[in-house]
């Protein structure tokens, strides 16, 4: 109740500020509700019965005071807790150089920074396996806390986007009976800071094409008090991403190469990838196909700690845009995970407000 009151006060304060302030101030949000059902074999048996669920309510606001900017994003989860999703202060030196300090979406690939909790923006209901959130058993830190230098520049070759970041390295913590990644919001549990880079280009000769590479390097420590599966793992993740949208078609894909090195210097290489095709029949109707694959080394202590399994998923869906602010998506998925296979059916109504 107290948390709901906090959010209410925040909304009122922000609205008053928006009305009274002469600055460029915006307050927005996302919400979604869904229904899911799976057949025998699914790893979450609750969905065999068919379940309605409200997703998360995403509230975010930004204010620009000349060159200084503030962005804050709060998530009210379905369990009622409030999570500070993003919070950063930024300074714009120029379009070529912007500084952001705080908690931000890890710039790894395109998907993670493009959609995140904005279900209305996301072409599909679920995120691809490779970019699942930490609390869903994600294999990379979707969030980072640190410093991010980024920029873009239009050159004769095309639009260039680039950036480097350094942040607290993630840790593995307990979450119920599972272990999940955590982005170390307030302190780092080892001396190795995570570093990352990203670069992308939309060539001038083909502006509807965007290709990019990114990398993230971190030392990850299993911080669970009882029975840690591993001590330290030095992780290097490289991502190649592409997005091509000629006319009504949109094709995108991302490939993740993951190298983990254990404390005994043993190396494990795994990979994950996904490809998505959407085709806008009209502005309202958009069918899509998503193929998702993750192949991990079974004896890798990092994936053992996170209980990650090999998975292949094919999703066929149809999106109906009620307006530019709201859409309904329906999906059928064929899932194969760790020698089990099953089907899933899902509907989602998403809204941007």
């Amino acid at each position: 109740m107290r948390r709901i009151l906090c959010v209410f006060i925040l909304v009122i304060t922000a609205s008053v500020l928006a009305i009274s302030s002469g600055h460029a101030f915006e307050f927005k949000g996302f919400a979604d509700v869904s229904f899911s059902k799976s057949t025998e074999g699914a790893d979450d048996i609750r969905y065999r019965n068919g379940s309605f669920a409200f997703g998360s309510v995403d509230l975010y606001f930004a204010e620009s005071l000349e060159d200084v900017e503030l962005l804050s994003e709060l998530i009210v989860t379905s369990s009622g807790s409030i999570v500070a999703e993003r919070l950063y202060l930024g300074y714009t030196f120029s379009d070529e150089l912007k500084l952001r300090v705080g908690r931000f979406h890890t710039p790894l690939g395109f998907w993670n920074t493009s959609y995140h909790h904005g279900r209305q923006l996301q072409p599909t209901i679920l995120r691809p396996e490779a970019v699942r959130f930490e609390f869903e058993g994600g294999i990379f830190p979707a969030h980072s806390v640190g410093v991010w230098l980024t920029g873009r520049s239009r050159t004769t070759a095309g639009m260039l986007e680039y950036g480097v970041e350094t942040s607290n390295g993630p840790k593995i913590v307990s979450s119920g009976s599972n272990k999940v990644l955590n982005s170390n919001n307030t302190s780092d549990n080892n001396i190795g800071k995570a570093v990352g880079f990203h670069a992308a280009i939309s060539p001038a000769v083909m502006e509807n094409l965007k290709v990019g590479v990114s990398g993230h390097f971190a030392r990850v420590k299993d911080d669970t008090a009882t029975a840690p599966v591993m001590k330290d793992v030095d992780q290097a993740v490289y991502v190649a991403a592409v997005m091509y949208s000629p006319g009504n078609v949109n094709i995108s894909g991302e490939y993740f190469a993951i190298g983990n090195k254990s404390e005994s210097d043993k190396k494990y290489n795994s990979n994950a990838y996904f490809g998505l095709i959407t085709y806008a029949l009209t502005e309202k109707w958009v069918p899509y196909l998503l193929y998702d694959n993750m192949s991990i080394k079974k004896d890798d202590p990092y994936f053992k700690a996170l209980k990650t399994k090999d998975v292949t998923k094919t999703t066929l869906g149809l999106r109906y845009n009620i307006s530019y602010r709201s859409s309904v998506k329906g999906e059928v998925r064929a899932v194969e995970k760790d020698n089990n296979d099953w089907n899933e059916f899902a509907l989602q109504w998403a809204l941007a407000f």
Partner: protein
Amino acid sequence: MQYVKFSFVAVLTTLLLSGTIYASAYARELAIIANKDYPFPSISASTVKDIYLGEKTSERGVKIKPMDQRDEAIKKRFIEKVMGSTVDGYKAYWIKKFFQEGVTPPTAKGTPSEMIQTISQTSGAVGYVWVDELKGDSGVKVLLKIEVGN
């Protein structure tokens, strides 16, 4: 008979030509205007697009502040002809852009005269009005004129 044919062709040509002249005479033009501190005397259509998509936010140290019209007719024409998008597509783009990067969308101004006045008084401000709404020295810099049809 040949005279009738010739007359028919001549009348048709005259009608077509006068139609074209009429259309071009009444084709409306949008003016891209800016505060006088904008560092360049002119601007390209692709730079206008970058500014209104939030891709370009500063020019030679001047922070650019794009402004939209509240009037739906001119806004629709600007978005369709200059931005190459639909009104809904433009709005959806800004929801995404604001969420991803925290870049705030162009502020909206009520009337053309209000927009001209605000731009003349705001450093780095950029906007658009119908050319015929600019009278004498409006205190703004005209960077580009774009014909947007009838």
